[in-house]
């Protein structure tokens, strides 16, 4: 039988022991979570005009150098896709090296070292589509991160905490747009972050600056006087894979059905 003295002693010990973990745990009440959801006056958005893109790939080159993505590694934060639809109804699409060196040939890369030369008279329509992270309003990559290493900053940009990422790769699988990859040097999840170090200093992103034709633009969608925000809110623009409900914040002018 346990004596009253022992029972009280043990109870005191147990309570003391449990109170330490309670102090270490952060208990999240929904009300508190709601209260700290501050409204930011900046929401970065991107506008791509596919009519203006010529497939020079200067954006990809600038991005890789600006963001220190190993130049010859087959990984890039942004890339340009070429779509060629022929009159016999076939679709050819390629992005050799992510278009780091541009499109300098009429031969479309079919993969496995095969190329298809398409004659001018066989083309029904052909165009270039720059791709980058959509900085979704509902980013699935953030939802799946088990450790809180990727998150949405108050201005809408989805960032990766390299010191916190465990390299599980869930986010890479979760992104419907395939914009995520492992950084060849840091071995952590990597993605376009709208050149966060540049936009936070009032500069344009490296790809926007490098584009000679104004095919890429960045702006603050919450500023009614911003030319990019004006275009997005008043012109006909499209988004990629709207069926996923991710609410992408990269908008396209001249988006074709064939673009995925």
């Amino acid at each position, binding site marked *: 039988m*346990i004596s009253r003295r022992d029972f009280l002693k043990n109870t005191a010990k147990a309570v003391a022991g449990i109170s330490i973990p309670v102090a270490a745990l952060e208990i999240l009440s929904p009300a508190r*979570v709601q209260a700290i959801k501050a409204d930011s006056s900046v929401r970065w958005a991107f506008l791509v005009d596919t009519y203006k893109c*010529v497939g020079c790939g200067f954006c990809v*080159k600038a991005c890789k150098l600006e963001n220190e993505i190993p130049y010859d590694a087959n990984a890039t934060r942004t890339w340009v896709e070429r779509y060629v639809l022929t009159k016999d109804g076939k679709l050819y699409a390629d992005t050799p090296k992510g278009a780091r060196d*541009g499109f300098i040939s009429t031969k479309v890369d079919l993969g496995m070292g095969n190329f298809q030369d398409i004659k001018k008279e066989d083309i029904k329509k052909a165009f270039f589509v720059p791709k980058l992270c959509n900085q979704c309003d509902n980013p699935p990559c953030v939802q799946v991160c088990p450790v809180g290493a990727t998150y949405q900053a108050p201005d809408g940009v989805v960032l990766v905490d390299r010191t916190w990422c465990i390299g599980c790769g869930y986010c890479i699988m979760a992104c419907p747009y395939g914009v995520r990859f492992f950084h060849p040097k840091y071995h952590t999840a990597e993605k376009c972050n709208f050149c966060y170090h540049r936009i936070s200093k009032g500069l344009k992103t490296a790809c926007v*600056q490098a584009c000679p034709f104004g095919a890429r633009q960045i702006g603050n969608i919450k500023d009614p006087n911003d030319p990019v925000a004006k275009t997005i809110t008043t012109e006909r623009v499209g988004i990629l894979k709207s069926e996923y409900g991710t609410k992408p914040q990269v908008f396209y002018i001249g988006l074709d059905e064939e673009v995925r």
Partner: protein
Amino acid sequence: MKNHVFRPLWAVIGLIVLVLLIRFFYVPKDFGVHERGYMYGWYRKSNIEDWTKVTVKYQGKEYCTACHPDKIESIDRTPHAIIQCENCHGPALEHPSEPPKLAIDRSRDQCLRCHAKLAYPSSGRAQIRGIDPDKHNPDVECVMCHNPHKPSLEGMK
């Protein structure tokens, strides 16, 4: 009750306390739920600042104008005015202090990025004057005949 019942219980409680203590000291103080709530805003706040500290490499045309106004002035009278200096000259970084000299890309492939003729309707590429790289003096560098700072055919060297 006997001691042998409590002993494993103490061991388990001790382990839990230890893990939570390590967690308490290991997890940064600014790690937690922020603006966008638990689903999208569970992170280490100071990481935002870490990202803003990344070095800017591409300085833009205005930066070049400060020391090379003559070059800018002459290229601005040509169709190549729309091209950033750093697209060919490489990122300026802290130039002229570091690097003192930039590595210029004078390769044929650099010119072909725009000037390899691709007759793609509904793309701006179709409007650019272009050549067939396999037929127009293959194996010769473009800069042998053309001056990228004076690209019009009248301005040929």
